[in-house]
């Protein structure tokens, strides 16, 4: 499983630019679903496990998670040039789309059909996000503690609606210490 520097595939800056353009243009309703779908299932650049490792780091770092993930995947496959190409692919189209949406919103924002279509898409998008959770959960070890940490994070943020930084600060050291002891 461990890849050395030589075995690791290098993808061209152009391939990174195009792949991340494709991810970002499909990325309705959150990009985690599409990033995983394209990188793990379609292109097979990353395994499920490698994707989860990068996603964890991307969520730990400040800034938009999907952008952090893009930088790290770009860097893995093409160093500095790869990271720049991936980010350019990731942001160019959405900027143009957002400007187009801004124009549409100023003209048609009040139309009921427009608002109903938005609602229907959001409902499907919630289902897509839920399916990512189910697929990624399959790589978690079948032990009590990791699942307990996951459940506590869900209850703290999703049910009790406590501030995210507090929940993470309370759970993270405990979870990392547990993983550390298992390796040692």
């Amino acid at each position, binding site marked *: 499983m461990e890849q050395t520097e030589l075995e690791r595939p290098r993808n061209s800056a152009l391939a990174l630019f195009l792949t991340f353009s494709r991810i970002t243009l499909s990325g309705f309703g959150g990009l985690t679903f599409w990033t995983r779908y394209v990188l793990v299932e379609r292109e097979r650049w990353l395994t499920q496990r490698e994707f989860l490792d990068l996603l964890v780091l991307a969520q730990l770092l400040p800034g*938009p998670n999907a*952008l952090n993930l893009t*930088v790290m995947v770009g860097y893995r496959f093409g160093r500095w040039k790869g990271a720049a190409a991936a980010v350019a692919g990731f942001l160019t189209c959405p*900027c143009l789309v957002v400007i187009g949406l801004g124009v549409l919103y100023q003209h048609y924002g009040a139309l009921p059909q427009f608002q109903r279509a938005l609602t229907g898409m959001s*409902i499907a998008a919630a289902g*897509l996000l839920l399916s990512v959770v189910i697929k*990624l959960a399959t790589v978690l070890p079948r032990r009590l503690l990791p699942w307990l940490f996951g459940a506590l994070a869900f209850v703290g943020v999703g049910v009790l609606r406590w501030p995210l930084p507090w929940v993470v600060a309370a759970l993270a050291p405990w979870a990392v210490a547990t993983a550390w002891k298992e390796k040692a």
Partner: protein
Amino acid sequence: MDRVDLGGWFLHLLVLWFVAIGGPATILPDVHRYVVEMHHLVTTKEFAELYTLAQVAPGPNAMYVTLIGWHVAGLSGVAATTLPLLVPASTLTLLVGHLNERYPNAPLGRAIRRGLAPITIGLMFASATILMRAVNHDWRGYSMTLLTVTVVLLKPWNPLWLLAAGALAGIFGLV
């Protein structure tokens, strides 16, 4: 509407993104406070509509800030709101990415990644349920969300079709 101080907004967002651990949703309350309550650049209704539009549009969810920037100040608004989100990514993330590639088997890095993976999954589950509660008003919405999950898990279809189906169901008043 107040006159827009784009420089001040730029700096405000720059600081926000550096403390935004956990992604775009964590800074939403503060963005709302700045553009709606302090500077009256958009109304709270416009804020919610622009946010929803950016959520279902292609691209990162963080682009809702860009959309507000365009709505308020055109192209210079886009620049003032989009450049700040690049700064943490192009400094801290590159550094961590570099260390992670250089020392993929460092025990501490490994423990951090393995230890936090379940927390990440739990938080994503929380986001999914919050999103579901925000958009589903009755059993029809929830059944459509569950139907989407089932189809994704069982069929290798391109998920864009599911979003298109959602849009159609919305237009014809099924959900």
